[in-house]
């Protein structure tokens, strides 16, 4: 098969192709597709929450349903939307940026994506099996261990599966970046997005195992009558908070560092200027990641850890402001003296700088222990983390979607609709969340199903809800833009006048990525060739046969097996049918592993002669 013979195929063929794919680009698109679906679901949940809070003492949803909505909104957004959307972008773009043909372990990549997809579907299926988890996305014990029904079990098993996929992908990204950079692509020539992919993956590798353990302990407590979090039997519920936030705080950086990477690509491209202080940017990224592990207890200032612990964690927390500040100023100075072109991705980058600065400032305020005694668990915190997660991560994702859309889907998104979407989203976002800082200080705790009449909280909540609807409309505009783009002409090659290697491949991206292994001559290799050469990347070696892996259905089946077993675990207390499911599912998954281990899969070669006929 060659790129030129890629014709219209039946829907069945396409679906089968994606189910069996081990190609990093298609896996990336799977991540984007399902991350996008979970993003939309979590968005609808957010709108339901805001609708409930549009007036005081509203009864649009019941108290129990409200707690399920906030839990699913948070869990979906963080674990099943934001993170997978970044994974999709990393999967697609990072190998192209470093001149690699695929990730280090293509088969494992397939396992990772299907574990995420099945984990996410498992958790969201809880709505149809007697109710969703309702103990908040933080799932604090003992509220979670005492939560009736199966809801929290779905949280535990769903995130366990998705989390395994996350760790697998993290390892894969690290191995790829360490081992598979193209000739001349030294570490200090790597684009910032690839750098942040590496650092994010390291964070995942160290942070997620703590959560895996926490989830296992929770599973044992809820399903096998252990007492890790049961105080009456000598357990300790605070342990859950520690384990959760040891993952939960680095998770914040897992979500925001890739966005930093994206803006470090977008801003230089549309300022026509190389990134200011590249080395400082790289070290700031590392510093943020390193400090990110020493601050988890700032989520627990009111737990009663004592003044010594609180003071130490306050120091750590505030220290993070320093490398983050360095980044903000470096971006500003990148634009300084440049030639700024306002496109949709650049608009998101420009919207990001003030929004994220506000989020960072409130972060410093929260880091001050004594001030936090007032902020903690109020709408001030809600405002703060939405400024960071939306103003940072979501703006980053939206910038990247507009920026890399022509690379990934061979179509341009409409700039007109894109700008409309940005303004709706930006206005809606600030309307929703700015006022919430004040709501919190005016006495509105977070996770409140209703707020009472006559407490002067009405106006703020109304404004907030209106803002949320605007953001909803913005997302609809994006969807329209995506649908319309399908009917457009193919995008030109390198439409943004890019600087990095991913823009050197033909459109659509050939399934083998690079015909010739590309030679990197410095930071921003494509820009260097545009300035000093003929604008084409030099081949590092003569054309030769390319070795490619075969696709496989095994990652899909393996993940399906684990999902069946997970259903079994969730229902094993209800009778023998649960236990039977465990055995069936595990046997099936392990069977797939045995098949994979015993069957030799040598892959195939694309002969040189075929490649010669292809575009450069």
């Amino acid at each position, binding site marked *: 098969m060659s790129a030129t013979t890629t014709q219209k195929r039946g829907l069945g063929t396409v679906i089968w192709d994606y189910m069996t794919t081990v190609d990093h680009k298609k896996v990336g698109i799977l991540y984007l597709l399902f991350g996008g679906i979970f993003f939309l679901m979590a968005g609808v949940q957010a709108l339901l929450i805001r609708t409930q809070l549009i007036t005081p003492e509203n009864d649009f949803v019941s108290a129990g349903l409200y707690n399920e909505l906030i839990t699913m909104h948070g869990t979906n957004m963080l674990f099943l939307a934001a993170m997978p959307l970044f994974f999709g972008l990393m999967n697609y773009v990072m190998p192209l940026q470093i001149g690699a043909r695929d990730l280090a372990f293509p088969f494992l990549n397939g396992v990772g994506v299907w574990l995420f997809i099945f984990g996410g579907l498992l958790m969201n299926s809880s709505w149809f099996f007697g109710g969703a988890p309702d103990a908040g996305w933080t799932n*604090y014990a*003992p509220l979670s261990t005492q939560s009736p029904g199966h809801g929290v079990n779905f949280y535990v098993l769903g995130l366990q599966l998705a989390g395994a996929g996350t760790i697998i992908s993290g390892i894969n990204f690290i191995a790829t970046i360490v081992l598979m950079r193209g000739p001349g692509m030294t570490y200090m020539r790597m684009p910032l997005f690839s750098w942040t992919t590496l650092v994010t993956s390291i964070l995942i590798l160290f942070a997620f195992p703590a959560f895996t353990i926490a989830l296992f302990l929770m599973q044992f407590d809820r399903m096998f009558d252990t007492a890790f979090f049961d105080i009456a039997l000598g357990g300790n519920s605070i342990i859950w908070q520690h384990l959760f936030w040891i993952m939960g705080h680095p998770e914040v950086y897992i979500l925001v560092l890739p966005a930093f990477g994206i803006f470090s690509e977008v801003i230089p491209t549309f300022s026509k200027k190389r990134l200011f202080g590249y080395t400082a940017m790289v070290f700031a990224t590392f510093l943020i990641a390193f400090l990110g592990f020493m601050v988890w207890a700032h989520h627990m200032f009111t737990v*009663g850890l004592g003044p010594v612990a609180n003071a130490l964690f306050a120091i750590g927390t505030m220290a993070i402001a320093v490398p983050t500040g*360095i980044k903000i100023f470096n971006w500003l100075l990148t634009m300084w003296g440049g030639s700024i072109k306002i496109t949709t991705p650049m608009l998101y980058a420009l919207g990001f700088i003030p929004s994220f600065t506000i989020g960072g*400032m409130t972060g410093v*305020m929260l880091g001050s222990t004594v001030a936090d005694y007032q902020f903690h668990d109020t709408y001030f915190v809600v405002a703060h983390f939405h400024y960071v997660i939306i103003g940072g991560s979501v703006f980053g994702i939206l910038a990247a979607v507009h920026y890399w859309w022509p690379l990934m889907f061979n179509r341009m998104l409409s700039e007109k609709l894109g700008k409309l979407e940005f303004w709706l989203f930006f206005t809606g976002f600030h309307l929703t969340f700015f006022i919430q800082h004040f709501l919190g200080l*005016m006495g509105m705790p977070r996770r409140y199903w209703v707020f*009472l009449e*006559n407490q002067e909280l009405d106006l703020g909540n109304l404004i907030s809800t209106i803002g949320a609807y605007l953001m909803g409309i913005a997302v609809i505009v994006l969807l329209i833009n995506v649908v319309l783009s399908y009917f457009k002409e193919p995008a030109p090659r390198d439409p943004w006048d890019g600087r990095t290697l991913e823009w050197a491949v033909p459109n659509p991206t050939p399934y083998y990525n690079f015909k010739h292994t590309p030679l990197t001559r410095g930071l921003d290799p494509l820009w260097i060739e545009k300035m000093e050469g003929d604008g084409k990347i030099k081949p590092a070696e003569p054309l030769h046969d390319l070795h490619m892996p075969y696709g496989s259905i095994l990652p899909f089946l393996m993940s399906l097996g684990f999902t069946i077993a997970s259903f079994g675990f969730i229902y094993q207390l209800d009778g023998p049918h649960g236990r039977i499911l465990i055995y069936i599912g595990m046997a099936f998954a392990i069977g797939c592993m045995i098949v994979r281990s015993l069957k030799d899969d040598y892959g195939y070669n694309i002969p040189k002669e075929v490649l010669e006929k292809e575009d450069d």
Partner: protein
Amino acid sequence: MKRWMGKFKALMLFTFLTILLAGCGKENLTALDPKGYGAEISFNLILYITFIMIGVFVVVMVIYTIVLLRYREKKGQENEIPVQVEGNTKLEIVWTVIPIILVIIILIPTIFYTFDLADTSEASTSINVDVTGNQYWWHFEYQDEEVSTSQDLYIPTGEKVYLNMISSDVIHSFWVPTISGKMDVNPENVNTMYIEAYEEGVYWGKCAELCGPSHSLMDFKVIAVSPEEYEQWITDMQNVDPEEVPADAVAQEGQDLFQNNCMGCHALGSAPSGVGPNLTNFGDRTHFVGYLEPTKENLVDWIMDPETLKPGNKMTGTYDVTEEEADKIAEYLMQLKPSEVTPESAGGIID
């Protein structure tokens, strides 16, 4: 450019207007108008950091604005290539060192007051109250006084009151924004904090840690009265006779019904805390169930159908009374007013 800035300005103006309109919030609930020691310290620190942070924001926005005004791509110069600057060590040192200095000047008062607010050295000579958080109500026991009450915590003004807090079920968090910051109420250990109210008043308290469906309805009050009135209240509460028979016949029937149906969970007088709130001074409550106007209709509604008014509570289905009986019980409960000192002594609840 003009268009962009116009929109941004309009947005900022709009937000500031809304804040002005909304004011600082309700005066006995907001943290922005502190009337107690902890709240005052937190508020001062919030103002101090906000001031520094606005300074930083202004610097960022000035550079940002200059960049956007001066370095937009100009018509006819699309093909010009700007100078590719690698960096500037001096500048980078400046914006590393200045934030470090700012962080240090924020940290010094932060750490000082962290230790100050955790200081328990005066606890043994002060009023100590054992606080128990329950789904979804609060219990208060005054140490060495043999006084118990629920939902409304009476304290004297101008004195530190130490709260020793534990939960009987899941994690709660004790927060009276106008007087003090919050502290979690854990099931496994006693957390101690102190509060001090400067002025008399009835202050709203809220649970700030998700504790189940009725988390948002777990409100309570702190009633700060003058030290003399506080002494009076303690004496009155100590002298309560839980068996005292009310004067009118309806309330007497209500008392019988109460003793037969409710005493299994609810206590009167200083009896140890039960499954449900202590009702000794129920007639003086500022609100019923934490948030309902203290009217008899509301109380009867509550007795007849607690699940609707407070989903997930532990009272639903533990007794069986008719509406008529509930009415009599309500009549009895509303007459439980053992003290001259009431929320009205502190100025009453502000509506």
